[in-house]
């Protein structure tokens, strides 16, 4: 049972971690990204489309590409056209929901799911995406903390005027951050579809929002954010296992992930300070 619990935690954590890493890149550059949900969904659909047409590799490429393009639109709206970040993000989520449904009908003639797809090995430990995700967490940490791009991105998110006066092309850096977030969230979506060997409508099921909570909980830093995602995934997995054991206390067990989130956010992490210019237009 402990073994199942840990394996389930890893499998449930992968989409959270990838989407949340995306959220870190976007928000450290000062762009609020509630569009993670739509990017996950878009990634999942295009992963299915690519995998159906030419195997899993093509699926991954298509997922990253399509989701990054959608993120580019979000970046353009927020940064170039100074739209409200939350409103634009909501629009992107609605667009993703309608677009995937429309394309599902157009490409696969079904309103609910794609045909069966080639997958990526059985079990989470055999999935190359587990190791890919771990590497991406490390790379994200290095990229943000140690590279010129990371420094510029953080400057754009903390004090865009100062960054601008030092010659940083603020708008372009911010949009790059948002596009990176789309690429990462798209990969998370690809995991949803490929691990399940199928795309189904609305399969992101709110994971983008949970990922966003993990970004805040992890104080906008890649490694703590990944740890937060692991905690959320663990709560999910624990809830599933406990439902069967404590069948008399079903309702109580089902609130566990939410109660845990509240408790952690309220009590244990201390002050979580967002980038100073987050959401600025």
């Amino acid at each position: 049972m402990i073994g199942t619990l840990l394996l389930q935690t890893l499998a449930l954590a992968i989409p959270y971690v990838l989407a949340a890493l995306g959220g870190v890149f976007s928000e450290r550059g000062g762009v609020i990204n509630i569009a993670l949900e739509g990017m996950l969904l878009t990634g999942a659909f295009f992963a299915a489309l690519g995998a159906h047409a030419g195997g899993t590799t093509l699926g991954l490429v298509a997922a990253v590409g399509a989701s990054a393009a959608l993120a580019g639109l979000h970046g353009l709206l927020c940064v170039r056209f100074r739209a409200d970040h939350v409103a634009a993000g909501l629009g992107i989520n609605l667009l993703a929901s309608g677009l995937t449904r429309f394309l599902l009908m157009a490409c696969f003639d079904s309103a609910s799911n794609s045909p069966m797809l080639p997958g990526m090995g059985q079990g989470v430990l055999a999935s190359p995406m587990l190791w890919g995700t771990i590497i991406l967490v490390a790379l994200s940490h290095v990229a943000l903390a140690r590279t010129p791009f990371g420094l510029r991105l953080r400057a754009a998110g903390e004090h865009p005027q100062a960054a601008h006066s030092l010659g940083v092309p603020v708008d372009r850096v911010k949009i790059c951050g948002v596009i990176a977030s789309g690429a990462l969230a798209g990969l998370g979506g690809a995991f949803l579809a490929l691990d399940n060997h199928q795309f189904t409508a609305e399969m992101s099921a709110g994971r983008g929002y949970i990922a966003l909570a993990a970004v805040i909980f992890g104080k906008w830093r890649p490694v703590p954010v990944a740890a937060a995602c692991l905690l959320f995934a663990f709560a999910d997995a624990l809830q599933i296992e406990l439902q069967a054991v404590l069948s008399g206390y079903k309702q109580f067990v089902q609130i566990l992930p939410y109660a845990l989130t509240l408790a952690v956010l309220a009590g244990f992490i201390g002050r979580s300070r967002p980038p100073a210019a987050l959401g600025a237009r």
Partner: protein
Amino acid sequence: MRRSLALLVILVVIDVVLLFPGGREARSRDRSAAGARAPARVGLVFDVGGRGDRSFNDAAYAGMVRAERELGIEAELIEPGEGADRESAIRIFAARGFDLVIGVGFIFSNDLTLLAREYPRVHFACIDYAPPMRDGRPLPIPKNLVGLKFREEEGSFLVGAVAGLVSRSKVVGFVGGMDMPLIHKFEAGYRAGVGRVCPSCRVVVQYAGSTPAAFKDPVKGAALAVSQVGQGADVIFHASGSTGLGVMRVARDRHIRAIGVDADQFEDGLHPGSTTRSAVITSMVKRVDVVVYETIRAVIERTFRGGVRVFGLREHGVDYVHDSSHGRDIPAHVVRRVEELRASVIAGRIRVPEAP
């Protein structure tokens, strides 16, 4: 600022267009060729998911296609998208003087109850009708509206018996979608069916969540199934929409059996590269097609009666897949036993509970 506004307007327009993926579709053919007026004009409004869901909506569609073919009716359909205005979809048909307007899904109950009063000469039907409540009391159902309900617990009772009889581990699973009374009916019937044929069997019950998203999360469904396999389950019945597709996937990978719901889900459980080997041993089917067809016929033959009608085993409203090639993995002695149980339920010797 103005440019951003223009861009947002464009985005909203695209959104709205995409919210109506199917749009309206006229399905009347050769109206002039036949010369005579069709015996009835019928409008069908789908639930979210729409045509192509290989389940509920497709079954309603099949019933209407059969009525077109056999009764010569004239039919039109509307597929409202998520968040689209369902009430106006019904009103479009009612205002044009259709003979019968069918809403596919409990979500239409409220709108249909109100519109039936507004258009007393139009007949209305609502699948899975749940009477709308005002001040804690259910609203009376208008005379020109028929609420069509199913005894899901009776069909679930039969597949529960199948599960109890084919399980070798004596542990069987149930995966529910959203934790709510409608799904509790499936759980209750299933539990009763398992208990009737195998009192020593354990039923592991887990739900995917407490919001409607729990019906659309195959990844969660797979996690639930993995957990149940870990507890020894070798047959899993799901009542969880597309969440159940994750259950099927795990059933394939782990070589256990799954039981489908609403429609015959044999094809969703097919092993890779095979067209005959499926993890789905049977499915609990709701005959929405039969009910839609019979309602249309009642309107034509002027035998339509309003009120709530309930379809159980006796009315052939629910059933389990066993007499086609998709049910041939069920051993003959199991089918015999389950058919005995069916007869007992129909005769009233067994009462299947609606709540666990």
